[in-house]
């Protein structure tokens, strides 16, 4: 089972991308998409050493909607900061201690940090315990780190790693 279908989530995802790319739901394309979704994970198994498991799909959906909302807000925040006086900005670096361990969860967290208000993930420490975050305008990096941990890291941990 694991050899024939190493990534059960990647297969439908790739099939979905294939259908979107062709803008169609013809049976032939569904079949071709599923075939590609089955073959590509097998051929690229070396790049995906971890098996991905989604434990709580509802938490993931809620996370995505929170993220989309935050992205829209981030755009307004950053636009305001850019149009305001750039000399008044207080950029800061902060160290974010990571509780996550799986590769996918860490990369999703780093992506979310970059997409959300005024923060940018800059570097993952070599021992994978810290993520260095750059904030565009932040007077209290401690509070920012606490917010990120509560708002983004906890749901990701629930979804991809069993608590």
């Amino acid at each position, binding site marked *: 089972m694991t050899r024939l279908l190493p990534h059960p989530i990647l297969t439908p995802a790739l099939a979905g991308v294939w259908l979107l790319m062709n803008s169609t739901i013809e049976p032939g394309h569904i079949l071709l998409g599923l075939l590609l979704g089955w073959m590509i994970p097998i051929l690229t198994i070396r790049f995906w050493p971890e098996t991905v498991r989604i434990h709580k799909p509802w938490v993931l959906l809620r996370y995505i909607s929170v993220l989309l909302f935050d992205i829209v807000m981030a755009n307004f925040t950053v636009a305001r900061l850019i149009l305001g006086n*750039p000399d008044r*900005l207080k*950029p800061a670096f902060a160290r974010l201690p990571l509780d996550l361990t799986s590769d996918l969860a860490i990369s999703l967290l780093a992506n979310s940090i970059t*997409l959300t208000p005024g923060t*940018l993930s800059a570097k993952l420490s070599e021992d994978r315990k810290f993520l260095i975050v750059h904030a565009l305008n932040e007077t209290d990096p401690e509070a920012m780190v606490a917010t990120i941990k509560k708002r983004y890291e906890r749901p990701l941990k629930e979804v991809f790693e069993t608590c």
Partner: protein
Amino acid sequence: MLDYFLSFLILTGAIFTFIGSLGLVRLKDFYTRLHGPTKATTLGVGSLLIASVIFFSTRGTGVSLHELLITLFLFITAPVSAHMLAKAALHLNLDSLAKMPVEKAPEEKVKKVKKEVEEKTDEIQTDEKAAHVSSEEPAKESTPQNSNEKLADS
């Protein structure tokens, strides 16, 4: 009515994309400049793509959803490229308005440098499979020197 809505979306998109690029000019150091293109442009390109979906879907030639894929790939690739740029900048110690992050305590740094030197000598040794025992000694001597030099630099 639909035309006005589409024009509104396209204008919003254009304004946000413009603000994103304006950030490159107005902001003062490399790290803050990274913020403009990664954020302000996502909403800009997003609303342009939504306008495109609606426009091509209402022309009667079927639903057009390629644009969703563009959004997906943009959300994946923009943070990754920003992360790589920031990492490279930190590696090169580029000037920053913010205080540079402290990565590790000094003792750990010495250990890390020593480990690196050892790993390198290991590599050299495995390369020279002819078993030159003499090559081990100069490598060991260089270990404390190197770590001292690196500490002095920092």
